[in-house]
């Protein structure tokens, strides 16, 4: 009951932004336009829905499809005990999306990770730089066109 209400409410309140809202294998999924992310997140974090926890934030690279990248957000509402998945597609030549650091504090490091691995720019992020890879590393490793074994050593190896 609850999940139908949230999904329907989202479709009603943001008709231009929400492209699709469905339930898939028990998870609620909402596919949106990337411009409406911040507005939607603001709506969800407040009462009565109270999606107070940002569980996860990641990106998927669909090489060969247009648009190529897809941002995936997982939100969790403690009072309702419900999870919600928000997806938004990004074009390869326009790889930016609004940052959620103003709403959830862990978005800081999560977005740095996505920037490091995929190269997505987050507008409004206070300090966007690499988190896992070292500074002299070039490229974004988790993209499909980055070869698995391409090593870029930091120091000169022996032998």
């Amino acid at each position, binding site marked *: 009951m609850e999940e139908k209400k949230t999904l329907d409410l989202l479709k009603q309140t943001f008709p231009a932004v929400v492209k699709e809202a469905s339930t898939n294998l028990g998870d609620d999924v909402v596919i949106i336009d990337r411009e409406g992310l911040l507005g939607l997140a603001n709506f969800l974090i407040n009462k009565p829905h109270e999606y107070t926890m940002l569980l996860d934030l990641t990106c998927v690279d669909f090489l060969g499809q247009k648009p190529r990248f897809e941002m995936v957000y997982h939100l969790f509402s403690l009072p309702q005990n419900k999870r919600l998945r928000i997806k938004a597609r990004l074009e390869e030549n326009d790889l930016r999306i609004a940052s959620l650091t103003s709403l959830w504090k862990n978005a800081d490091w999560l977005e740095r990770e996505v920037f490091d691995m995929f190269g997505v720019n987050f507008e409004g992020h206070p300090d966007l730089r690499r988190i896992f890879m070292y500074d002299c590393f070039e490229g974004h*490793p988790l993209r499909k066109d980055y*070869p*698995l*074994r391409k090593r870029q050593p*930091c120091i000169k190896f*022996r*032998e």
Partner: protein
Amino acid sequence: MLGGKALSSGSEKRSGLSEMKKKQGPPAQFITTQFNSILGWARKYSLFQYPFITACCGMEYMSAACAHFDLDRFGAGWTRFSPRQADMLLVVGTVTQKLAPVLRTVYEQMTDPKWVVAFGTCTVSGGIYDNYAVVQGIDLVIPVDVYIPGCPPRPETVLDGLLKLQEKIQHQEQEWRWKKRKP
């Protein structure tokens, strides 16, 4: 890989030792050989280890160092958490490309005589991680004396590796301050 076969003490297979003996007469040879063995004995039973712990093998290192499988009974119990005070660098766990400069710095900070033990398959050859982020074996970064394979190695394997290192230390040519150096 896990050290050589067992050599008897005072063996003449080490080339450095035999060259030195050719220069000196028989009584001096006897003294230096014995002193060499004594120094080897002292060094092998008082290893001060620096555990450079990164990953899962750290758990087996903790097991090997604690009460059930004791490292202390082999003389290697004192963990010195500073490279300047240690003589055995125990590299435990995967070394990534980001960490390789740090490993090199720590190795260079250690003073002679020093030995390096590669603990776990990731340090021996990169392990199951053959990708952009992992160094395929720490011997690309620093010279290694004993390799201990296993993912993670059982504590008995660790103790076996330690014994092999002790054998190696006993039979190698030791350096001491008043030894005449070749010009």
